[in-house]
């Protein structure tokens, strides 16, 4: 009561002074914030798409250029998409994701729709409301009965779906798997979103760029037996052995077991054990989020660089707070887009799924079918503060 009264009495002058002070503080804060954000961004600008080893990031075409998201550039090549559309009028591709409510697959479907509009085909997405292989079998049978021209499927169980898909193929329906493969004889093409080598290398390349190619780094992985992570870490070590990374040292690989609490604790231990730690790579969605939370709790966000693999929805707050500047994953929009284009090419007869065949995939350019009917989407997509809000998955 008394304070309020005093304040009122003191009047305008004091209030103005307080406002001015607040304003100065705010400007200082924003400036400081921008400062921390900007500093490594300058490194980015310098090196553009070049890694510490002097190679293009993403081991090939510029990663950031490729992945134009949903609002991307469908107009880029109006007639490129028309090539596989020979039978456009009858083209009816059904997407059968693991789970139709998962934002990841909802996002991928927008890519499928985009491709359908370009090619002049029909698009539909059907599937179980929760990941369930048995329900997917029923959907495959229904789609077969509906005589769709192609099914693009992300399998909940590679073997459970195989007999139904083989039956579909026997009826003349083209089958493409995307995101999660089925038994190779139960599909013609697998659109692989992630090439292990590129996924592994790009995380080191991102961190190298953020750190100016020097400093101590650590890896926070999932379980020590996790197949994917160990494959990626192998390529990370290989990338670090290249010339250009002499001043970057991998001091420890810790294992958070894909458990948020364990990952959090391991991160704190890394910070304690290596006071000069410059950066952490966490090639697991659980690990990177837990590490980000740990860095923020310890007040080291932005000071220790963190990158790895994650999804935009899960990491958005950490990107906004500056704890994570860049992280990698594939772009599900492009994945859906390519799955549709590959289906269209199969239906048109441009490709059959044999290695060495090539087809045009609209704005993503030309693709070649690899070993075992695999088509690799391309370099991983790098999410930054600038582009993260275009994604919702």
């Amino acid at each position, binding site marked *: 009561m008394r304070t309020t009264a005093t304040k009122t009495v003191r009047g305008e002058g004091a209030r103005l002074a307080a406002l001015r002070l607040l304003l100065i503080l705010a400007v200082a804060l924003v400036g400081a914030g921008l400062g921390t954000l900007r500093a490594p961004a300058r490194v980015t600008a310098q090196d553009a798409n070049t890694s510490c080893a002097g190679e293009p990031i993403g081991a090939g075409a510029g990663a950031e250029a490729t992945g134009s998201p949903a609002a991307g550039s469908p107009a880029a090549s109006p007639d490129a998409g028309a090539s596989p559309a020979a039978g456009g009028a009858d083209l009816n591709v059904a997407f059968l994701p693991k789970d139709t409510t998962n934002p990841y697959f909802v996002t991928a479907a927008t890519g499928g729709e985009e491709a359908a509009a370009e090619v002049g085909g029909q698009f*539909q997405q*059907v599937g*179980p*409301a929760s990941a*369930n*292989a*048995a*329900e997917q*079998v*029923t959907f495959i*049978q*229904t789609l*077969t*009965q*509906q*005589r769709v021209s192609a099914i693009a499927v992300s399998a909940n*169980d*590679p*073997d*459970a779906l*195989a*007999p*139904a898909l083989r*039956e579909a193929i026997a009826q003349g329906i083209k089958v493409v798997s995307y995101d999660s493969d089925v038994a190779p004889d139960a599909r013609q093409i697998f659109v692989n979103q992630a090439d292990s080598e590129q996924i592994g290398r790009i995380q080191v390349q991102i961190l190298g760029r953020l750190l100016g190619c020097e400093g101590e780094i650590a890896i926070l992985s999932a379980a020590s037996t996790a197949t994917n992570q160990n494959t990626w870490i192998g390529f990370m070590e290989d990338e670090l052995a290249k010339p250009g990374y002499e001043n970057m040292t991998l001091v420890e690989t810790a294992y958070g077991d894909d458990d948020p609490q364990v990952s959090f604790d391991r991160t704190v231990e890394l910070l304690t054990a290596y006071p000069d730690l410059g950066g952490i790579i966490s090639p697991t969605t659980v690990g990177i989020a837990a590490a980000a939370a740990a860095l923020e709790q310890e007040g080291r966000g932005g000071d220790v660089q963190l990158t790895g693999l994650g999804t935009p929805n899960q990491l958005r707050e950490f990107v906004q707070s500056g704890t994570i500047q860049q992280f990698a994953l594939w772009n599900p929009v492009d994945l859906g887009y390519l799955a549709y284009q590959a289906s269209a090419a199969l239906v048109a007869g441009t490709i059959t799924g044999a290695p060495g065949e090539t087809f045009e995939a609209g704005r993503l350019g030309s693709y070649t079918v690899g070993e075992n009917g695999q088509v690799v989407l391309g370099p991983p997509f790098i999410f930054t503060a600038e582009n993260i809000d275009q994604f919702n998955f």
Partner: protein
Amino acid sequence: MSATTVAPGAGRATERWAVLARWETLLVGLLLGSVVLGAVRSPFFLDGSNFGLLVSSFAEKAIMALPMTLIIIAGEIDLSVASTMGLSSVVLGLAWRDGHPLWVCIALALLVGAVCGLTNGLLITLLGLPSLVVTLGTLALFRGLAQGLLKQDAVSDYPEAFRTFGFGKVPGTGVPWSAVVFAALLALFAVVLHRSWVGRQIYALGSSPEAARYAAVRVDRIKVALFVASGAIAALAGVIYTARISSSRSDNATGFELDVIAAVLLGGVSIFGGRGTLLGVVLSLATVATLRNGLALSNVGAATQSVAVGALLIGSVLLPNAARRLAPGRVGRGGRGGRRGGPASTAEAHDPAPG
């Protein structure tokens, strides 16, 4: 309520037939309606190959509906069938993973199913517990066992011949193998229920357990046998299902019990026992399978399909009741007509055992 006690007697059989015939006429109408709906909504519905899809996607539930019909007529219920199915699928998978010959694995799965049924039967008869409570418990218990045994794994490396059985059709026809199994079991259960002394005792048991006991019906023995049959056939359904989706998972067939029981009740079997025929249940199974198939072909999701089936079931209970209330001329014997006429009976036929 006009809970007229039914006098057991000679007139009863003919009366029952007359009324049930009416109910079955309604079911034929519903079935035809489902066919028309499917044909209107999808150009692929009346296609010859659709029959195989329609049958195979509902075969497991149809098979389990057979013993369920007998159990409900006997005045009991088995909520644990889908869990028994899942557990047997898991046992099949584990045995196969351990390298046993396939026929051993299948025999083991059927045995486990029978043991599940025996557990239900003994708990119900020895401890005198209501089957609703016992099988609600084993619904959770058997599913829990399945989850404990296989965790999040899946066994799916089954041989081609096994998958063909689950997925394929009798050579030269469009009839799935599972339909053959269903037809054989239907014949067996029809004879047992409608042409044998066992069937008569089942009806007697459901109409009035006390009277049946006095009439020297071995109530406990029949109940245990029914639950063992239900368990073993749920396991058989589990084997067929495992073959059809070529994988054993602990969540296989979750929730199937609701479709099975709904189909039996829609078929005119009284939830309070003593009334119903397999003909009605077969018609109801065909209706539900056709409805689901037609909706699926016109891209209606599984959730909406369930809404349609649920609405059909509730409507089939409400309509006869409403019709009876609106027809004053029949009030005198209306209580009876309604009680006998299919699921309408569930609404009021809670008359305690006479005597």
